[in-house]
């Protein structure tokens, strides 16, 4: 199987689900995402009930802390990276391996940009005294956004591993499901971010 | 099935159960001989639900035994091949609908009582002069003791709750350190004392406690709170309204009472030097003390909630509280005392009383 290479003509229609293992990976990543939904729901709910709560006389509040321009740029980066990974999957369907690699790499770059901004944001907060242990609010904020950030890191490492290790192998039925699963995961990260920018940042500045 | 069960049968079943259940337990602690409206209502709900549950269990058991007895292979023969039935819609409807009906029947008193017990509006009602009409007690649960503050009366006591009969007594419940739960089984259900908020509920005390074995109802901490959770008991003294008023007056009269380090009494002197920073000997004040208020200690029923009320156990307590209540917050806070001092301080504390 490894020796014979696929061509766009022989590449099956739903390549990522053409083998049993592919199907398993596909269903598996989705079920994992389902469990991640309740994971995020828990952190989110915790954040909501601890928002703006702190020791008596705490000076920080969501309304005074969050800055929309930064959140907006981060949102745009992540949203765009979602689209680029769709492009990668488009090329995967057409068995255009180079296209897959290039678009996945762009996705990684955008993801890195997002991550850099997030790190900058955290650094900034800590710098002005809003550290992890400052209040219940700060703990909940960093935990929620940090959990999302951790997902971004995992997604990036995952995609980079795929890009690197498959560089010489080309696209086949063994690694197509892996790309596909990674891209589904990456979209899910974006889904979560939609809630974060809406609930944490936008509703945050509303107070 | 339900129709056949005439009302009187249900009642006689209930009656039999009441007799059986109330044979259980000691009157001052059991939920099965409740006093007061709250406890009684909960007890009735208990009887009612037991009746339903007994019915369910009996029906299921009879069906099951009957099915089993008829279907034993030892009777039918080794080769008997039963008919392979898929199921039956009629039966399925029956055993879906009947439980639903039973549950609806149970849900009605459940919902009524839930809302009723949560109704604490009367707590804030005032008469024309602006005085609260209802008696309110602020309960603070602490590792491993209870503080009872009567905000309207301006008094505070510990370990022994004193309340009047036949009126709603409202409680503000909170915990000072970790979560506990306030429970007087013979009077009504419990309510947790949380660390971050005040819970409110009410109880009613149906009869005076004087003729009980110890002259008090028993109260319990019902939430695991550390090693001595099992020992975090309190007592409830229920007086008639006049008796209660007298008690309040006597408490208020202790205003300003304190122990003097200059006293000639070794007990008082020791107390003033070693104990007074945590234990008050005046009943007037608010909650928030480090240790139980000892103004009424001589009138109490137990030492530290669990020990027999005697000088000997008091001495044992002061000598080594840790051996009695592991993890308590008194241990090691007051230096070494000689046996003589302990004996004297015990005499002094035993003498603190507001009853004649």
């Amino acid at each position: 199987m490894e020796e014979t290479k696929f061509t766009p003509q022989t590449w099956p229609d739903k390549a990522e689900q053409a083998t049993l293992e592919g199907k398993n990976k596909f269903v598996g990543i989705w079920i994992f995402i389902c469990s991640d939904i309740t994971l995020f729901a828990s952190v989110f709910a915790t954040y909501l009930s601890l928002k703006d709560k702190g020791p008596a006389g705490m000076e920080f509040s969501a309304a005074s802390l969050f800055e929309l321009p930064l959140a907006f740029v981060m949102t745009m980066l992540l949203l765009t990276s979602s689209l680029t990974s769709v492009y990668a999957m488009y090329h995967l369907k057409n068995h255009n391996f180079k296209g897959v690699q290039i678009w996945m790499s762009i996705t990684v770059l955008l993801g890195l940009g997002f991550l850099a901004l997030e790190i900058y944001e955290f650094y900034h907060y800590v710098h002005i005294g809003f550290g992890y242990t400052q209040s219940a609010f700060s703990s909940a904020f960093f935990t929620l956004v940090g959990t999302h950030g951790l997902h971004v890191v995992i997604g990036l490492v995952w995609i980079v591993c795929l890009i690197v290790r498959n560089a010489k192998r080309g696209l086949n039925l063994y690694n197509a499901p892996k790309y596909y699963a990674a891209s589904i995961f990456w979209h899910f990260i974006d889904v979560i971010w939609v809630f974060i920018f809406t609930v944490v940042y936008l509703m945050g500045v509303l107070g | 099935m339900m129709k056949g069960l005439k009302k009187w049968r249900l009642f006689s079943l209930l009656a039999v159960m009441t007799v059986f259940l109330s044979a259980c337990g000691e009157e001052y602690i059991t939920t099965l001989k409740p006093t007061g409206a709250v406890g009684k209502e909960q007890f009735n709900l208990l009887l009612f639900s037991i009746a339903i549950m007994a019915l369910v269990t009996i029906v299921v058991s009879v069906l099951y035994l009957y099915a089993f007895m008829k279907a034993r292979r030892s009777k039918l023969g080794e080769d008997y091949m039963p008919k392979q039935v898929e199921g039956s819609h009629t039966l399925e409807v029956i055993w879906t609908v009947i439980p639903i009906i039973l549950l609806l029947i149970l849900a009605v008193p459940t919902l009524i009582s839930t809302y009723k017990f949560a109704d604490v509006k009367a707590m804030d009602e005032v008469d024309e002069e602006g005085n609260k009409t209802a008696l309110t007690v602020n309960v603070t649960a602490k590792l491993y003791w209870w503080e009872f503050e009567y905000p309207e009366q301006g008094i505070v006591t510990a370990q022994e709750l004193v309340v009047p009969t036949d009126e709603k007594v409202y409680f503000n419940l909170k915990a000072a350190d970790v979560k506990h739960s306030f429970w007087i089984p013979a009077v009504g259900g419990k309510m947790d004392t949380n660390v971050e908020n005040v819970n409110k509920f009410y109880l009613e005390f149906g009869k005076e406690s004087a003729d009980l074995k110890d002259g008090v109802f028993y109260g319990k901490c019902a939430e695991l709170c550390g090693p001595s959770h099992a020992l975090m008991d309190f007592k409830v003294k229920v007086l008639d309204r006049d008796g209660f008023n007298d008690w309040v007056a006597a408490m208020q009269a202790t205003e300003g009472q304190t122990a003097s380090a200059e006293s000639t009494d070794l007990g008082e002197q020791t107390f003033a030097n070693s104990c007074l920073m945590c234990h008050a000997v005046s009943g007037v004040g608010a909650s928030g003390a480090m240790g139980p208020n000892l103004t009424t200690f001589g009138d109490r029923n137990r030492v530290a909630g669990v020990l027999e009320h005697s000088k000997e156990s008091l001495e044992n307590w002061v000598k080594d509280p840790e051996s009695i209540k592991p993890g308590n917050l008194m241990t090691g806070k007051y230096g070494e005392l000689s046996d003589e001092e302990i004996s004297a301080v015990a005499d002094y504390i035993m003498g603190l009383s507001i009853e004649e």
Partner: protein
Amino acid sequence: MSSAAVTNNKGFGATLWDYLTTVDHKKLGVMYLFAGTLFFAIAGFEALLMRLQLMIPNNDFVSAGTFNELLTMHGTTMLFLAATPLLFGFMNAVVPLQIGARDVAFPFLNSLGFWLFFLGAIFLHLSFFLGGAPDAGWTNYASLALYSPGHGIDFYVLGLQISGAGTLISGINFIVTIITMRAPGMTFMRMPLFTWTTLITSALITFAFPPLTVGLFLMLVDRMFDANFFDHTMGGNTIIWEHLFWIFGHPEVYILVLPAFGLFSEIIPVFARKRLFGYSSMVFATILIGFLGFMVWAHHMFTTGLGATANAIFAVATMAIAVPTGMKVFNWIMTIWGGSVKVTVPMLYALGFIPSFVAGGVTGVMQAAAPLDYQLHDSYFIVAHFHYVIVGGIVTAIFGSMHFYWPIMFNRALSEKLGVWTFWIFFIGFHCTFFIQHFLGLMGMPRRVFTYQADQGWDLFNFISSIGAILMAIGVVLLVINIIITAKSKPLNCRDYWGDGRSLEWAIKTPVPFYNFKQTPLVRGYDPYWLEKHDGNKEGMIYAEPLGDIHMPNNSILPLVMSIGMFVAAFGALYHPDGKAWAIPVLILGLAITVGAMIVRSVKDDLGFHVHVEEIVATEEHLYGNGGNK
């Protein structure tokens, strides 16, 4: 590789290596079974110590602090480390056979799940030797848990975090297996009930464990890294813990009881020689219980002070669960009705289960009546309730299924005679221990007390209860003896040991070869093996494919390595608050081991290997003599 599996006589080292690296669902099933039994014995022993302490008033057999440790470890171990793995053992051993699969969807993850669970469990138990076990109850309520000195709670948090990750992984694995790997013809509505309950249980795991993970994480950072989630002086709130815990905790009890229901739904039809009554309503009830299980958690918090409306909603929702559960009970009874019941040991457990579980279930409904629960909550009534459903429902299922499935799992049969003794002693002991506790609760005895005063009228009943616990212990010891004796008995080498097997797992000859069915069976209806048998099919099954090469996954040591990494990292986190200089490096080292193993895993292609036709024929001849599996 594959030929190694044919030869049985391997040295100890090779066998050990085989088990450490195996990804075979049958071997992992056996490992789960033994690990679970070990922890069941430990936790049962802890229960015994508690009962001995409570036998007489004012007893000083164990100290207050020790009692709290025993009680916490008993509850935690029983639920997470005994009942769950024992049920996982059966799921692993049986479900792939029941659906005619070669293995689970992710054999590697299956092994990882086991090792995470096992090392997490070991980590938790090390607390006994490293300065004290957790002591805040299995519910670990935040205020007490933050207050508790020493490292007990830290062991709880980290140990459960690790073993919980294992459970979550296994849960996802089973879902995928059941969704994608059923043999041709096995539609959802032809799946055996144990497979169904495994599916729903795994779904509950998928949704319920993440809230626990989050709760534990918040507790971890609060205790070890000075976060403020539960510290109310810093704006935190302990009720968050209660919610997160019970959002997990209530589904958890159904996670345990659903597979038990499934096991009984397998046992009863076999010994009643009759098709399971109302199959589709059984499936429906399972799904409904799973769904409702998520909507009722606050019934554990009626006295927390959530307010009347919340209590009312949750009370009614809780009561609703009685309906689907009742459907199940009546379906079992109707399966027996008109059947031909053979009273073997598994059936004995099933017969004992029905009334015991109903008795436990109805007290649950009583507790669901919120105002009544104000009296019952945190009293011994609760203890009685949940031991009735747990011991009467889950432990009977486990013991019964041990007898039931031992022939498939080990190619040996447990002694029926000893089994009957075990059953009666255990069963009588069980009722003796817990029936009386209902009354203790009503008589005002709170739970989680290390001792009680003599003047409260509880002495006699506590004494009776403790005697019951001793009887149960004797029963368990008999079971262990039975297992030991059986290990020395002759192999069965048979098919359909009980004679009336219905589902696919009975169609295969024991010992089951490592690739399961040599050809994937074709399923023509519900109870496929029964169908074939009664159509006079001598082969046992008809097959969906010709005999061909079989593709199997490779063994791997990496799951163990990853789990060890987590184990090491946990020590780093644990000792961090003590200001030990090596703590953070150890934490990083452990995580590095895990991540390193993951990278190795992802960089190396793992394509598995093929068992060729000749090898299959040889294996079958070796196992079953001439002619192979016919």
